């Protein structure tokens, strides 16, 4: 069994925005001041309130 022990990863922090009323979602880069459950405007689909559903870091794969 091959076991990878490489723990070095480049991470990029993303903010996931969702609509409270419909299935609209949007992912963008994290901005200072973002926090989970913060209201960030209205949905372009049904004008419902948009909120930050999550903030997480993703591993960035370097292009060679």
């Amino acid at each position, binding site marked *: 069994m091959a*076991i990878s022990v490489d723990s070095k990863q480049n991470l990029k*922090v993303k903010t*996931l925005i969702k609509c409270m009323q419909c299935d609209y979602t949007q992912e963008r880069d994290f901005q200072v001041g*973002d*926090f*989970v459950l913060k209201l960030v405007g209205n949905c372009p689909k049904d004008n419902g309130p948009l909120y930050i559903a999550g903030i*997480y*870091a993703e591993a960035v794969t370097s292009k060679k």
Partner: protein
Amino acid sequence: MNGLIIALAQTSSQGQSGAALAFSYIFYIFFIALLALSFFPGVQQKTQIMFLSRDVEQKLQMIEGYLKDSRGLTEKLLKEKGFADPKAFVERIIDRFVIDPVSVEPTDIINRMKLLMRSNEDTVREMITAVNPNIDPMTRSQIEISTEVVNALNLIYKVIRHYLIMAKKLNSIMIMYQLQMVAPIYVKYAEAYAKAQKVFLQGIPIGDGLGPLVASRFLMKADQKFTVSKDTIAGSIEFEGRKVVVVKAEGPMATVGTPGEGVQNVIEREGGRVSRIITVDAALKLEGEETGSVAEGMGVAMGDPGPEKIAIERVAVKYGIPIDAVIVKMSMEEAITEMRKEVYQAADKAIEYVKRIILERTKPGSTVVVVGVGNTAGIAQ
């Protein structure tokens, strides 16, 4: 030995000039002398200590680098927030300590521990607000976390340095071996602490925020939220005919709150008529386990030194309430730095676990307390 030297000399003398021959002799004599010297008692040990200490010194320099970076960041933050002399403030806080309560007489040790820990937290908070009385809670929590990081890094640095100097002074290879074995682990801890400070200063949720994230999903639907204890908030929702009271630290400040006392107050307020307590927390994975894997069990899932955890256990025992635990696994570094996507996605799985426990182990009409344990930095309610 003499025979060997003669044989080597004879071999090397064939077809060589005088200078080359002399060089060969010197080389062989030097080599043999070195070999003989290595068999003298103590020489080998001294050489090993030299190489080991060089390795440890290198690790110590790395830890010192993290400490300096962290100190610099803290001083910069303090300066931005109106502290006239950030260096003096950091100097005062960097060696701060809490003395463990007497444990040979364990009676009431939890209350004594709680008093010491709370007093320390309050004192640091008062030290900050004394300099800047109008500081907002978010900035105050960032300063508190920064001072904790500087304090922890300073302790790691000083302890490693202490043993390194002691091993050199005593010429102890055993201390040096042990130090060389643990130093890389502490470099990793120091790196994680330094990274964590940067994450906290930006207000990004950390892996340990998994519990508060799960709680916030439930609390989104709560009409009313109320403070149940210091830095801790609760709200109640209705789920499949059950009343679910959800407790978490008050975000989005970087705090773990006082969930133990919070749960105790909630249960007392309900008159003890609670069917189940469900604790959700991040847990350290074993190497080889997957980040974001979920497991369930019994007991209070909480990485607390004692006072908060025991508060839940005591109130549960008082009213005979079973305690369930749902944990999401991650490494130590993942727990104190940016929340990984795998952990974020595991929040949905943890919610399903909680809902299943409620449906399977409680009856409609009953009351359940769900506690999201962890640091709520970047997670509101």
